[in-house]
């Protein structure tokens, strides 16, 4: 399938019409002012008789520099993350199939849990990279090139309908594109893997074999979606990577300017603020609001993302590690920080890394102690939590929120400003 058909030419038209005038003006200015270089009729510079040997490539500037960073992020971070998820999703598929074959064997189930854990860690990295096909195609959260693949893989924070899921298992329902997102995906697998039996309150009570069989169907679907998502980016298939790395050039019909791709990346990075900080940490700690609809008057551990599997802390680490990688780049490749350093804002580049490292260090400490889920469940004093949040020390989950806030304030404030990046849901209205 050609990329023209997969990615409709919409934004480029607006771009062309918008910039036709400046192009004309510039051509006139260029014609009036003459050109530089040797071909413009000026005094040609004599060639350097002995050019110094120079093994360093020339610096890249402007949009070439932005494309270079996008290219590195695409090839060194996004595509490898999707390749990794594709691989581990296949592992999960195999493990789930084994459970379906022998549903009562605990070792098989343990292997499936481990495979799910691995898949979840991988996906939590990909959560921060929701640019292009993984993103939504419709407003208000539409993403350029979005093809709605994310929610079918992992629908959190949509609440899982566990009784409907048990009913689907009992009925042997197929899992396909028509399956509602609140009974499919990694969350549904977690439920089937980490609960021994259906909630007695549910009408349907499938047996272990039916649940295992459904687990396998769910894993098949995720493996299919993982491959599909990877193929959307794969140069040998739909090649969204080409759209990404050539933003602003004719070959990219999705991104009229490299800045548009960076804006998409910026909005994707806000996942760490909106979901990781606000939903995964702030809500369970009960800090941000006082009228939470939860059982405990102090904290709300029922809002923990992966409470069944007790791995919410690992999710947070994966989110922040991916966030960090996007700034620092990996394996010698460039990241967002290179853009900051490239405009002489080393201060911001250093600051965000230090602050994210503080987050990761505190998370590592929490995981080494009780684990994030248990730490949230141990919150009993609201004032202690507020003080820990404000001072970024003390009660670990609450202090973590304070440390996260500092890092993400740096991102959403000075860094977004310095690079002229977009923020989510800010397209309404004009400026002046």
């Amino acid at each position, binding site marked *: 399938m050609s990329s023209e058909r997969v990615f409709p030419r919409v934004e480029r038209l607006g*771009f062309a019409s*918008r*910039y036709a*005038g*400046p*192009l004309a*003006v*510039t051509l006139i200015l*260029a014609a009036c002012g003459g050109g530089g270089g040797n071909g413009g009729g000026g005094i040609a510079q004599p060639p350097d008789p002995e050019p110094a040997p120079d093994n*360093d*490539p020339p*610096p*890249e*500037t*402007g*949009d070439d520099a932005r494309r*270079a*960073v996008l290219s590195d992020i695409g090839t060194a971070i996004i595509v490898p993350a999707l390749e990794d998820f594709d691989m581990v999703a296949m592992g999960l598929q195999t493990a789930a199939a084994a459970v379906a074959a022998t549903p009562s064997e605990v070792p098989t189930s343990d292997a499936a849990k481990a495979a799910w854990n691995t898949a979840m860690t991988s996906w939590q990295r990909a959560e921060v990279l929701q640019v292009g096909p993984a993103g939504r195609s419709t*407003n208000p959260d539409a993403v350029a090139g979005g093809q709605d693949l994310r929610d079918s893989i992992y629908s959190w924070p949509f609440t899982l309908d566990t009784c409907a899921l048990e009913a689907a298992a009992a009925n042997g329902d197929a899992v396909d594109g028509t399956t509602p997102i609140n009974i499919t995906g990694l969350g549904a697998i977690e439920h089937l893997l980490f609960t021994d039996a259906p909630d007695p309150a549910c009408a349907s009570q499938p047996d272990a074999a039916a649940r295992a069989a459904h687990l396998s169907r769910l894993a098949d679907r995720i493996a299919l979606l993982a491959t599909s998502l990877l193929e959307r980016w794969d140069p040998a298939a739909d090649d969204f990577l080409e759209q990404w790395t050539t933003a602003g050039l004719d070959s990219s019909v999705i991104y*009229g*300017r*490299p*800045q548009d791709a960076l804006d998409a990346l910026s909005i994707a990075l806000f996942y760490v603020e909106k979901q990781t900080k*606000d939903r995964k940490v702030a809500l369970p700690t009960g800090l*941000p*609001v*006082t009228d939470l609809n939860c059982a405990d008057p102090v904290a709300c551990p029922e809002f923990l993302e992966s409470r069944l599997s007790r791995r919410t802390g690992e999710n947070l680490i994966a989110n922040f590690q991916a966030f960090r990688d996007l700034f620092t780049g990996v394996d*010698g490749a460039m990241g967002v920080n290179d*853009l900051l350093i*490239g*405009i*002489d*804002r080393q*201060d*911001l580049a250093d*600051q965000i890394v230090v602050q994210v490292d503080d987050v990761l260090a505190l998370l590592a400490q929490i995981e080494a102690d009780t684990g994030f889920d248990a730490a949230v469940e141990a919150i009993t004093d*609201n*004032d202690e939590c*507020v*003080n820990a949040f*404000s001072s970024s020390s003390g009660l670990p989950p609450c202090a973590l929120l304070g440390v996260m*806030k500092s890092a993400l*304030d740096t991102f*959403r*404030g*000075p860094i*977004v*400003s*310095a*690079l*002229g990046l977009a*923020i*989510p*849901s*800010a397209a*309404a*209205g*004009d*400026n*002046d």
Partner: protein
Amino acid sequence: MSIVASGSAHTVLADSLSDRLLRELAAPRDIAALAVFRILIGGLMCAGALRFVRNGWIERLYVEPEFHFKYWGFSWVQVPSEFGLYLLYCGIALAAICVAIGLFYRVAIITFWCLFTYAELMDVTTYLNHYYFISVLTLIMCFLSPHRAWSVDAWRRPALRSQTLPAWQTHWVRFQVGLLYFYAGWAKFEIDWLLHAQPLNIWLPPHSGLPLLGPLLEQTWVHFAFSWFAFLFDTLIIGFMLWRPARPYAFLVILVFHYFTHVFFNIGLFPFIMVFSVLIFFEADWPRKLARLLRVPLAARAAVTPANAPRRWSLGRALATLAVVLFCALQFLMPLRHWYYPGTVLWHEQGMRFSWRVMLREKSGSLEYRVALTRHDGTRRTVIVSPHRYLTEEQYREMAGQPDLILQLAHHIRDDYLAEGFATVEVYAQSFVSLNGRLAHRMIDPAVDLASTEFGLARAGWITSAPPEPPPLQRPLRLDRK
């Protein structure tokens, strides 16, 4: 004797001056320019209202938010239901098109002004200078008569028709347009703008994707050049528009300037409004000349007969003139009020609105409230309240850098908790703001209880001083591959 003679001379001189002023203000001018101005502004406002609806901004800006920020003295302005909002904007569009075609003009322009201004008063976070300009401009138009030619009204009522209007009508519009440009320029006489090229140093590089011109937008000298040019342009352009030999060239510069502001910045209708508005500085018969040039048949200009103009001041005429002068004086003084407040207005924002401080600052902030609650039994607890609990992202983005809005939401939070039955509520803001690329600084004194702080015109001591360091100057993007 000599004293009497001198007094008499003064009286004669004063009479002569006042009569000359009257003659100048009342002198008949071709109606063509004002009639076209009416058509253009009406048409543009109709398009603007429909664009607002089409873009889904009614939902995003007014329906989705649970809380709306009020202007001081206008807390009575309420946001209608969704159906009411659509009616409101349809009413604006309908009134605007009636203004454009000159149908029931007087009713239409007054209706437009009321509806449009009401819409603008619904939420402070939607404040834009050009919306305010439209409110002021259309308020002025309520007192003008540009519908006496090229309008349905004039077609229907021959008695209404006129080929001329008194000169004061043109002068008033020119004053308001000129004031905007002048103050927009004067506001740029500011250290960040002129000496550090901020915020253009931040705003322009992302547009380096422009064909050919793009790479220039990365260059620091271009940011300085644009900053200085914008300062000089805004400050001086009206002077050139008033000077007949320079007028065509000045207008060309205006076209280019506003074209680029349209390309570089998401400022909606602003460039169109300003281009249409400066047309009023051309000779009053410019539409007829243009029509002749384009061979479009139009009625010839009526013979101007100064004899028809009033020669004496009447009480009514004097009072009307005084009212206009007071209005103009208010408009002139309003943008100066920020001098009353120490520090930079870009930081404390006291005197920022209604002052034509257009596109002057890049501000982003983060904000949380720490709320101390005391029950009637004396037990205390502290909670953290995120503004997101009440606001949409758009509102949050706007309010996080504006102290008066931070205070307003603090009061709302206080009222919320008092309504829940708490005996006392203290609200403290944790506010950090980055101005023009600086690192974030605290903007609100964290020790001040905003719940017991009232907003007023006095200097707000609860706003911290602006960061003393200059803004950073970002160099052109360059990556040195390792």
